[in-house]
């Protein structure tokens, strides 16, 4: 799952650095992901994994790292 998450971040996160250079727990916002780009990441994650995030999950902190995204996806039923 984390490879797919990284793929989504690579395509939609608009990061100034290579996503491969970031650890799973690295803060994506500190790495330069904008709020606007994070929304594109969320949309692409929903599409890629065919899930819908709940409103309670749609906040900045839930999408701040590969790890936190994996936790969120697990919460909506994506197998690890």
């Amino acid at each position: 799952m984390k490879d797919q998450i990284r793929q989504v971040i690579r395509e939609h996160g608009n990061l100034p650095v290579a996503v491969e250079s970031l650890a799973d727990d690295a803060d994506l916002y500190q790495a330069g992901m904008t709020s606007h780009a994070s929304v594109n990441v969320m949309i692409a994650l929903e599409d890629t994994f065919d899930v819908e995030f709940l409103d309670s999950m749609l906040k900045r902190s839930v999408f701040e790292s590969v790890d936190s995204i994996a936790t969120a996806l697990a919460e909506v039923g994506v197998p690890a």
Partner: protein
Amino acid sequence: VSLMADIDADLIATTRRISDEVAAAYAIEVDREARFPTETVAALREAGAFSALIPNELGGAGVSLKAIAAACFELGRHCGASGMVFAMHQIQIACLVDHRGENAWFDDYLGEVVAEQRLIASITSEVGTGGDLGKSVAAVSEAGTDGYAGFEKRAPTVSYGEHADAFLTTVRRAPESEPGDQVAVLTRRDQMAMQPQGTWDPLGMRGTCSPGFIATARFTPEQVLPVPFSTVSAETMTPVSHVLWSHVWLGIATDAFDRARAFVKAAAKRKPGEHLPAAIGLSELMSELSLLRAEVGLGLREYCELHATDRSKLLEMATILRFNNLKIAASEQAPRVCQEALAVCGIVGYKNDTPFSVGRHLRDSMSARLMVANERIHTTDASLLLIAKEV
């Protein structure tokens, strides 16, 4: 509970009196000369209103945000600039109270606000960010061997920058940080050099005295709020700004309505029983005003409820959309009410020196859509609407 309510009622009564007696007396002069509402600010200081929102354990009166909002409304009725200065100060206080954490420096400073009635401004806008408050160019420098860090920030506007005792400034966390990786720093005036840039001769809200500044500061690392600015902004600064600003705008619009009503009543007295087209206009105006009042009142209630029961919900995109919409709706409806009040009053409303003048109201309320441009907020909302579920 009743004691708390008394404290709220006291603040509202006090600001109403200050608005009626002081703000009203100087509003025309403040507007004409684009000067700071010194008399109103002095009266608010004397009444202890600058520390009203600070909780009891730090020595403040601990009034509710509802009372602060009502005070913004009261001041806005007679002097929009006074209302806005008061609102902006309270926004900074709310940010410090909510996000100071276990940091004793902030507790001490808030104690000083109680004792000395310090006035706090913010330095959030910056040249080179395209109006995006979520990005900074300026950064906190590395602390030197003396333990002091610093920043230099070019701000296109700093409201009451010449008059504030302290400043809450957004900057990047460190020299190597990305533009969105921001923190907020509180610095005292004696830790800063404020170099004014340009002039201040705007259309409205002239008494806020908001020219540009190059702000440089030297401070200790404990003066940095311990949470990321994105959290401060989402949980407190943005929604509280939208709630308090909109109360000021409601105050301005309400006074414009009151003037239109006084005009129609006077006309009706002169020609009893005659059909008055302006009376119909006034009735239409009342429904426009009630739309504004409903949105502003609901926004306040919703924020207070979330703040009291579930602050994490304030970080959700659906909630961000809600409070963004409060700002957009109120900032567009307030000038609409003022413009319709002008239509009711006609030429005596258009003239600047009659009891029915609403020119200042219209000009002041037109600043609303620029205070974080509505177009920028719409851009954010357009993006959030793609992903948020129930809005």
